[in-house]
């Protein structure tokens, strides 16, 4: 169990990146959703021991990793959102170096293990090419290989599927699902579909606060009877959005928008001409992040 209690992070400015985040993250895949600037990467930085919080605690296996950041490094696999490698090393050498730094052993030796891991992430063919020549997707896969090396107790992956093609994305999901059986895998993303597919639990951050900590089915259930769909001419959209909570608007054939809206409570009627729609996880997510900030606490409580 990873317990986050009342975590605050205020950067000079001042800018409050986290405003009292509390989470209980059990073994298994846990999704962390939120728009850009919600504080996800700040939270990741704190959880990986690379950023000191302004206040709060993070307990992993009974140890407060805020006070003892070395503790988390001993049991951590981390795939950052943006990262690079030594460009002059080959993929295998790079991974071998990281295996050595992490103290990962395997019966056949590190060289064999590195090749096996590269194979798992579909980089076996490029094992002896310099990392400097890797494409973005290949680098991402090498990053994943190092993150899962040694089967760490806590795996944190930050926007992991950016740059991956669909096939690699699925391969990646498979690996995460396998890893998530007996350890904590924290998946930070703003792609709701990823979380919907993989994570039995998820939390949504908005403006440095947790606005939802729930399961996908509960999130969907919270939107039952509240989502409506209809068409709005493009010229009227701005006026429409001022009167209704628009979840999404997709321009169709350049003149008309297919619009999904939500209402505050089930049972309320939707806009004129709109018909009820079956809610998706994305609707739930968008409803939370588009709602008024003042309602966030209530929303979080309701969602939980």
């Amino acid at each position, binding site marked *: 169990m990873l317990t986050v209690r009342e975590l605050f992070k205020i950067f000079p400015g001042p800018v409050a990146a986290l405003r009292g985040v509390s989470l209980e993250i059990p073994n298994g895949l846990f999704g962390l959703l939120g728009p850009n600037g919600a504080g996800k990467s700040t939270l990741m930085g704190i959880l990986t021991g690379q950023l000191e919080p302004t206040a709060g605690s993070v307990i992993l296996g009974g140890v407060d990793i805020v006070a003892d950041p070395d503790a988390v490094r001993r049991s951590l696999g981390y795939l950052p959102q943006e990262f690079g490698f030594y460009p002059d090393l080959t993929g295998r050498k790079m991974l071998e170096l990281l295996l050595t730094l992490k103290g990962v052993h395997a019966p056949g030796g590190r060289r064999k293990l590195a090749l096996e891991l590269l194979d798992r992430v579909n980089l076996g063919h490029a094992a002896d090419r310099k990392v400097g020549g890797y494409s973005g997707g290949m680098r991402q896969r090498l990053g994943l290989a190092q993150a899962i090396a040694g089967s760490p107790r806590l795996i944190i992956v930050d926007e992991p599927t950016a740059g991956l093609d669909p096939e690699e994305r699925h*391969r990646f999901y498979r690996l995460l699902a396998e890893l998530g059986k007996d350890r904590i895998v924290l998946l930070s993303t703003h792609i709701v579909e990823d979380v919907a597919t993989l994570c039995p639990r998820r939390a949504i951050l908005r403006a440095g606060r947790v606005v939802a900590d729930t399961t996908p089915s509960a999130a969907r259930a919270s939107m039952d009877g509240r989502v409506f769909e209809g068409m709005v001419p493009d010229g009227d959209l701005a006026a429409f959005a001022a009167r209704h909570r628009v979840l999404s608007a997709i321009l169709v054939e350049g003149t008309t928008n297919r619009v999904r809206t939500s209402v505050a409570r089930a049972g309320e009627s939707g806009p004129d001409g709109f018909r009820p729609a079956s809610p998706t996880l994305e609707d739930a997510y968008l409803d939370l992040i588009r709602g008024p900030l003042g309602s966030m606490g209530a929303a979080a409580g309701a969602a939980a």
Partner: protein
Amino acid sequence: MSPRRVLAVAAVDWKAAWKRPLWLMLLAIYVLLAIGMVGGNVRIGSGDSNAGGAEAWINSQFNVAFLIGNLVALFAPFFAAIATGLPVLQDLDRKIDRILYGTPLRPSEHVAGRFLGATGPLLAVTGGFIVALMLALQFWPIDNPEKQRGPFVVANFLWPATLLSLPLLLAVSGGALWLGARTRSPLAVFLMPIGVLILCPILLWNWSPEWLPWGWNRALMLVDPTGVRWLNETWLKADRGVAFYNTQPIVPDAAFAASRIAFALVGLAFVPLATRSLVRGKRTRDERRLDPASLASIPPAGGASAVAPVAGRRLDGLAMETRVPGSLAAFRTVLGSELRILLRSPGVWLFTPLIALQVVGSSFASDLWLDTRPLETFGSLATSSFNTLTLLLILLTLFYTVESMVREERLGFAPVFRATPIPTRAMLAGKITANAGLALVVMAATMLGCLVVVAIQWASTGTLVPLEFGVFVKLWGVILTPTLLVWSAFIALVHGLVRNRYATWGIGLAVLIATGILQLWGYLNWASNWHLWNALVWSDIDRLGFYGTSLVANRLFMLSLAALFLTLAASAFPRRVRDPQRTIDHVRPKPVLLGLLRLSPLVAIALGLGLWTWIESRTGFQGAVLRREARDYRKRNDATFRDAPVPALAKVDAAVEVDPAQRRLWVSGSYVIRNPHAEPMTRIPLTAGRGWENLAWTLDGVPQKPVGKDDFAAPPYLEDRAGLWTFTLAEPLEGDRTITVGFAFDATFPAGWTRNGGGVAEFILPSGVVLTSFSANFMPAVGYLDGIGVDDRNAVDAKDPEPEAWKGLTPPAFGSAWAFDLRMTVTGPADWELNAVGVPGEPTIEGDRKTVTWVTDHPVRFFNLAGGPLVRNDGEGSSIFHSPRHPWNIGTMTEALDASRKHYSEWFAPYPRRDLRLTEFPSLANYAQGFPGNITFSESIGFRTRNAKDDDVDLVFFVTAHEAAHQWWGNMLMPGRGPGGNILSEGMANFSSALLTLEKRGETAMRKMLRQWEDSYANGRVADSERPLNLTTGTRPGDTTVTYDKGGWAFWMLLEHMGRERNLAGIREFIATYRDGPDYPLIEDFLAVLRKHAADPAAFDTFATQWFLRVLVPEFRFSDATVTGGDGSWRVAATVENAGTGTVEVEIAAEGEAPEGSEGKEAPAPPRSIARVTLAAGERKAFEVTCSFPPKRLVADPDVRVLQLRRKLAELTLPKATVAAMP
């Protein structure tokens, strides 16, 4: 190209320039340097620094050019390269170029904008330096401003900056920009200024041997991007007098002006080249069309389609285990990884050959005593390159360490790297050690350079020195590596604290500069000399044993500091970004105390070692304590005894025992003292050594205890006047009466550590012993020694000599006024050779001690004791005692000693002693001294002199002949204590060695030797300070070369003027007249005796006045040369000018093409026709020479008979002949 867009890019840098640490640091360095230059300690070497003399103005155009040229060249290239070379690279790293090039901005505009953005602030800061220099040199309060400061002329500052600094800055900036764009490597950019440092200050500025042809010299001036070599060689080296430098502007010749313009243009031309490199690097390689069929065999880059699905291949199957690596394992891993990265860095491989080149070059450029060149051994090479290697490695390590600290951040690898469980300290230790270890590559290359030196030396001299690779391990591995470790750790700490690479570089460079300034001012000691700059003197015999504990303590101190810095750097390292809001949490007493507690062992060790080294440096024999005692000695006695009559020794009887292993000395003995003066003498002063223990005195056999300062005592009594022990006699000493002073003491010598390494003139060490009666180290010195206790605080300008001083009775220059007999019993290690003056008795050996009694067979005025674990080599009339490590030149030295004894006896006076010994000592000092019958040579003189090729000056022969000549000049003929006296010793020794060289090596070798002295004089003289030979005191700048080189030349020209036989007859009479005193001669006495032998006394007087009694030196130039004729007869017409001073008759030769020499034989001389011209100062005369061969060039004084300045310019290549009727 759009200027608007270029300026828009540049403006981004200009707006931020004022807050960039790089520029602020450079400006701060410049301002400090400007203020530091006001004192005038660093300025052109012209003028007369003595009281009343004309001084070089600190704000003259030449002095400002000297300062700006040197300082900007030393410091600005580092900042220029970093500022210009990196921004484009950073844009690429940050991928800003992708956005920028999506706008109308072109790569050429981007590069030009970045170039302007960097060079603008660079030039502005340099302009700030010029302004600071103007203000400091013009307005800062100084002593004697009316003498040191001329009127303010703004051109004096702007012109040197434009001529010297602007082209340099543009060239370096453009070069760095191009290098960065071309290599995409920041390190290549960093290495550029280091390359400039190696090539310019270390190689180009000062390397100018006499044999270097003028054309080559000119070429080197033109390729020097700093322009400093041109300034030195063209204007400053041959001193033109302070009036010239103070008032004249610097006028560049056409070639130099073209070179400066070319450097500036090349710098600007690098901008488009950099653009090309940038564009080429960005262009994709698949632009050319490929046959689609050929693509089929190439696997796709991603490889996805080639890979089977992974279903069923579970991670569990890998059976991975994690054991968090310990500190050592993590250290090893990071070290290995860093080393791999560093060794792939192209900069390392570019840089190392440069260092090796520098070592090779500088070893061939180095000079020793009497301008001899050293025969390099591995130890001397390792030590002589130690300073340069240390400096270059420190700079290299500075850049590489900073780069290493930011590498993960720069590559985006930091989040992954820092999330690994390795301890931060191990991570940093690995990085630091790798950067220090990088030095191994450079050291290996430098060692190869040393091998090349040894191989070339072997090929050119036939001497192969032993291949002692262990010396490199000791000096560069064990001794130098702690410097690099402490420096890397310090830089890592600074970077951890400031977290800005530019600020780290700036602070690093500032620390280096501050250390250099402290070194210059003499404030460093074993505790503070962290890079051991100038601390180590190599001796093949002593092998650094002299430094012993002090060196070990210094290195341990540095290692302890390295550990402390590393620990602090680990705390400061931004592995986890601290929250500023929690600062108060981190400075709460408990965590602070806990942190300090954890640090305390390291702090305690570092503090303990630092204190120990500081205290020992302070209390050692060169430390502040003894320096204060020496000042007290001077303060208490100078007024009373400086000019007081000195008693003379009539007899010395002493027993001396040395224990080299303990540096111990036991002495007991007696002096029989008499009064050589007409006036009675009531006080007999004797100077005792500092640190003598158990000192006891007797007077005529009666023990004497010193009376208290204020006690009344009836004579005879003894006073201790701060080390000057003064006997007040009951009866005045006069006439033939003598007294006997007995003494006994023991001492450790030298006692304790040196202050900051370096050498020492006298010592008792396991490697050898050198003790002389000149100092009070070995036995009491008779009288007050006016050299003790002199330092910057109490030094006074030497008095101008009295022109009539020679007329009265003159006391001897050194030693006792009376020659005396000596008996000295010497006890030392049984397996040592210990030589004193006189004839040795039969040795007696007891256990491991040997005792020999030495008795003089001819009276002496001074004495010594020298020896060590040496072997003996006997010649016909001489013996050489040398280290078995140095067998190479013994044959030549023995030949020179035997020939000296034989021929000097014939030419001057018979050698009066049975033995002539020469004893080698470790080169902790580089000197030779001709004690009577017992000459001492440092190992670096003669023994390790690079023996020249057949057609060169035989330096081994020369230096031995010079020192052997002191048996006559300085012993048999003791000069008087007065102006010009020492020239009768050193100048005559040079003259004698020229005579002997002529006798044994022939005229060509002798003339080449004269030419070498002339070059040394022309480059070393200080025109305003120079006095005529008869008034030279040895205390003014440039007096050394006047004494040795001009003195030797003047005596030689006198011989040629008088004729050999007349001259030698005069010299014999001179010796016979003055050898026994009581009047000891000066130059005028010498001339008076020689004049009696001159065939034409009037011509003799004219000659003597010009060369001995005045400072007049000619300098010849040719102009308006034409050649006419053909068919076997040619006529050369030209004008020759004496651009110097004096009136001389000079031969002018028209020379033709030298005929082909047959293989293995010396090339024949070219055909020559001679004309003679007499020229007064400034006089121009037309002349003609007719010759029967096609003339190729004109040479003034082809046979090297007239001392002149800038001889290389007294030649002219003639134009082709035009056909004209011969008259």
